[in-house]
């Protein structure tokens, strides 16, 4: 881009671009940059996620104009933070739509990013030369989880308090520094006004940090180029297409479809994806059953399944520390993906054995989400439209065969095995199907 000549003929555009080469950067990525011509609909979720970030920032900005981060209670026993959220919903013009677009939007932002990441996992989008691209994506996921947690706390409802209490408590698992980190996060010993105010400040700041990482993510993409469903490199001009108009139109279609579903949920089921109990202001008691929002459930499951202590020749790691380590590890292992998958073939389409384990991994994440939502010691079940499908029975004597916790341990095991055993070993032994010579000659002779 830099050093290249301005592509514009219009004297104003040309003059402006020669002084600030932003227009040529856009022009370059839209028309001159080579994209694979065979990207399927799974590739739509990247642009959808980007637009969702914008929706969240814009709606969040207007919400922040009316929100008050204060735990002070009025004579009804309702805290000011909760009241200000309800004030937005009841008294601010268009406030209900803004608030629900923001709260439902968080879920749909995660939906887009989850599809985007599983697409990357299936088609091997993390492999060379896209390691940095993938790692930036992992940074985005972790930032999103943090921002979502901070935002959820701001409502200061029953579950907001529980989330703030439990998640900040996790950091005390860190040896020596844990208690100091807890005080740093909370702004004191307790989950109180200081915590709410710093959470608000961080919830406002971090989305812009996230936007910065997204820009780096896109810059990296422009440098290394998009992966594609065949997972093979671009060989010639026959394999490529410019972004505009082909992918601009395809992305607009994908966005329109995604937003139709998103806005329908805002209109008719804005609370369906949320925990109902959080619509009640906190009384600073922990509810009997603590669950995070659905998008954090698999990680929450990994956090809570460890209930026993591990004794390593005298060095005792408590169950709480094991859980915290496992949760950190479940995210950390994503960063290692480019080096854990030893197969030279990118796309799962040409890896028959990998496919099987990949869909097992998708199932594993769904099961872990259910584990996160259910009570550890009780019989595990799968909710269906026709009722509960039990996967465990209460044997009496306080023992349950197939408890939520047992299923959780099993699938936490699969989660880690997928990354640190299956993928490394599979790459050495699996015989991949023959790759096509190029995107434009997909049919094998």
């Amino acid at each position, binding site marked *: 881009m830099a050093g290249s000549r301005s592509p514009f003929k219009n004297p104003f555009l040309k003059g402006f671009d020669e002084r600030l080469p932003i227009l040529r950067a856009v022009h370059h990525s839209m028309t001159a940059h080579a994209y694979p011509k065979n990207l399927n609909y799974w590739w739509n979720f990247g642009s959808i996620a980007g637009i969702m970030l914008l929706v969240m920032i814009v709606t969040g900005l207007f919400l922040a104009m009316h929100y008050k981060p204060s735990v002070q209670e*009025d004579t009804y026993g*309702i805290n000011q933070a909760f009241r200000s959220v309800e004030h937005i919903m009841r008294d601010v013009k268009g406030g*209900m739509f803004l608030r629900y677009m923001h709260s439902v939007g968080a879920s749909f932002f995660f939906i887009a990013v989850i599809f985007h990441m599983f697409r990357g996992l299936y088609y091997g989008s993390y492999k060379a030369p896209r390691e940095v691209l993938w790692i930036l994506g992992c940074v985005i996921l972790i930032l999103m989880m943090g921002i979502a947690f901070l935002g959820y706390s701001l409502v200061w409802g029953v579950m907001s308090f529980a989330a703030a209490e439990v998640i900040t408590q996790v950091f005390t698992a860190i040896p020596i520094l844990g208690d100091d980190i807890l005080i740093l996060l909370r702004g004191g010993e307790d989950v109180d006004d200081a915590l709410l105010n710093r959470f608000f400040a961080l919830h406002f700041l971090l989305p812009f940090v996230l936007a910065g990482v997204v820009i780096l993510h896109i810059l990296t993409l422009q440098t290394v180029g998009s992966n594609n469903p065949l997972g093979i490199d671009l060989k010639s*001009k026959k394999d490529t297409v410019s972004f505009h108009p082909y992918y601009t*139109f395809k992305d607009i279609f994908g966005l329109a479809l995604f937003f139709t579903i998103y806005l329908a949920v805002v209109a008719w089921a804005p609370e369906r994806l949320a925990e109902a109990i959080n619509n009640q202001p906190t009384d600073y008691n922990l509810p009997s059953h603590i669950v995070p929002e659905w998008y954090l459930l698999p990680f929450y499951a990994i956090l809570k399944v460890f209930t026993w202590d591990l004794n390593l020749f005298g060095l005792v790691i408590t169950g709480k520390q094991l859980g915290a380590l496992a949760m950190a590890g479940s995210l950390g292992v994503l960063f290692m993906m480019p080096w854990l998958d030893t197969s030279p073939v990118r796309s799962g389409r040409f890896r028959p054995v990998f496919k099987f384990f990949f869909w097992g991994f998708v199932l594993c994440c769904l099961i872990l989400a259910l584990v996160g939502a259910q009570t550890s010691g009780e019989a595990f079940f799968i*909710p269906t439209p026709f009722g509960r499908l039990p996967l465990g029975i209460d044997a009496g004597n306080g023992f349950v065969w197939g408890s939520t916790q047992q299923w959780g341990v099993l699938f936490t095991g699969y989660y880690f095995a997928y990354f640190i055993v299956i993928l490394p070993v599979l790459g050495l032994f699996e015989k991949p199907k023959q790759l096509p010579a190029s995107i434009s000659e997909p049919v094998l002779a």
Partner: protein
Amino acid sequence: MRFGTLLKTLSAAAALSTVAAAPAISEAAGPIDSQTWSFTGPLGYYDEGQLQHGLYVYQTRCQACHSLGLVRFSSLTGLDVSEDAVKALASTYEIPYINDDGDRDVRPGVLNDTFPWALGNPKRAIATYGKAPPDLSTMARSRIGGADYVYALLTGYDDAHEQPEGAYYNKVMKVISMPNPWPADMSDFEYPNGTRPSLEQQARDVTAFLNWAADPYLEERHQWGIIVVLYMLALTVISFLAYRVVAAKVYAKLDAEGGPDPEH
């Protein structure tokens, strides 16, 4: 035409029944049966007559202990009540305030006030009952099952069950500290319009009212949803067709001369 009226017409025409409650992971002890409400489903609306009855039940049976601290009197015009009638109703409430002499005093309520709490504040509520009766402004939104939960709880009392001192039996919450709101003899209870509602009818009406209190702009949201989703569906179809047209042209061009040079 009010949107509620439009919805009633549409709803009758489409004969849309209620959507079944989600298979929620329930924290409640008892079963919550799903009920038919006017406000569920994509064309759900509030029946203002029912809400007015519900308000009356709230005033009769709930407000001695509970508050609606987020519901302004002015919003009662949404129940198809005239502003003058709402003003008159608001003025029957005593709102605590500090007068010009600096003393604690009460004044009649005005439109901008929220429903006051007869118990005054959480400390007095706890001193009186041992546990503060919760504010009901968001109650219908803050339990799994929503209105179905509220209705099941209100109709779930059984005084025949033995319970420890100060606790009551309810099918939804086996041990509940909220006393049975229904007196044994309600034969002379009547609505302002002269009808004599059954216990179930009163529970149904007050549940609808509490759902309105928790979600007063439900009708606006449904109206918005119909317009926005129809618009988005049209946009989806048009953008798909546009994409196909563009794709056909791009494919033709690619076959002839290819795309950008990947080495670029």
